[in-house]
C-alpha cells in the first residue's frame, strides 16, 4: 500500500508555515489600506489563494500524498473556476 514510508512533518515546518501565513495575513491587511480600487480585490484574492495553497500543501499534507489526490484537488478547483467564468458570461455581457 503506502510503501511504508510514512512522512512525518517536523514541528519546525509547521511553525514556519504558521509564520508565513500570519505574515501574509498582515500583508493583505496593509495592502487593503492603500486604495487601489479594483486592484485591491485582485491582490487580496491572490494573497488568499497563496495562503490557501500553503494550507493545502503543508497543513493538509497534499505534498506527501499520492499524486491522485493532487489531481483531484486541481480538477475540483478547475471546475469551480469554470463555473464562475461561465456564470459571468451572463453577468458581464448584460
Amino acid at each position, binding site marked *: *500500500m*503506502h510503501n511504508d514510508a*510514512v512522512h*512525518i*512533518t*517536523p*514541528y519546525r515546518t*509547521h*511553525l514556519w*508555515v*504558521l509564520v508565513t*501565513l*500570519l505574515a501574509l*495575513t498582515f500583508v*493583505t*491587511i496593509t495592502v*487593503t489600506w492603500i486604495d487601489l480600487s479594483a486592484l*485591491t*480585490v485582485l491582490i*487580496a*484574492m491572490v*494573497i*488568499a489563494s497563496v*495562503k*490557501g495553497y500553503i*494550507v*493545502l500543501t*503543508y*497543513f*493538509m*499534507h497534499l505534498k506527501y*500524498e*499520492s499524486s*491522485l*489526490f493532487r489531481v*483531484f*484537488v486541481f480538477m*475540483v*478547483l478547475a471546475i*469551480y473556476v469554470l*463555473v*464562475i467564468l461561465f*456564470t*459571468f458570461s451572463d*453577468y*458581464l455581457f448584460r
Partner: protein
Amino acid sequence: MEHRDDIGAKLGMWVFIFTEILLFGGLFLVYAIMRNNYSKEFHEAAHHLNAFIGTINTVVLLLSSATVAMSITAVQKGNNKLAVILLFATLVCAAVFMVNKYFEWGHKIHIGLYPGSDLMMTLSHGQVMFFSLYYFMTGLHMFHLVVGGIILTIVMIKVNSGAINTGKYVLLENGGLYWHLVDLIWIFLFPLLYLIT
C-alpha cells in the same frame, strides 16, 4: 473482520471536503455576482464590519490549524500527551473564535443590523445584500466550526485513551483535514467581508 484501508478513508475525507468546498462555492458565487452588481454599496457596507475582530479571528484560526497539524506529528512520534495538549489548544482557539463572533454579532444585532430589521430596511439594496451575505456566510462557517470542534473533541478523547496511536491515526488526520477546511474557507471569507472596503 473489519477491513482497514487508511488511504481509502483519507480519500473519502477528501471527497467530502470537495463537497464542502462546492457548498461554500455556491455562496462565493452569489457573493461574486452581487459584488459585481453592487460594488459601490459593498464598499460602503464593509466599513461597518470590525476588521480588528476579524483579524484576531484570522490569527486564532491559523494558530489552531497549526496546532492540529502539529498534533499529527506528535502522534506519529508516539507523543500522545503532547498531541492532547495541542488538540486542546485548538479547541481553545475555536472557543476564542466563537466568543469573538458572539460579541461581533451581538453588537450588530443590538444596534438593529440584522436581516429583516427595521434599520436594515432603510439601507440601500446593495447594503442589505452585503449584510445578508455576511450573516449567511459567517453563520454557515460557524456551523462548520462547531462541527469541526465536536469531531476534534472526540479525536482528542481517543488520543488520550490511546485508541489513536502511532500505528493507527487516520481519524486524527481526517479530523485535521476537516479543521483545515474550516480555516481554508475563512482565509477567503476574511478579506472578502472585512478587508475589501
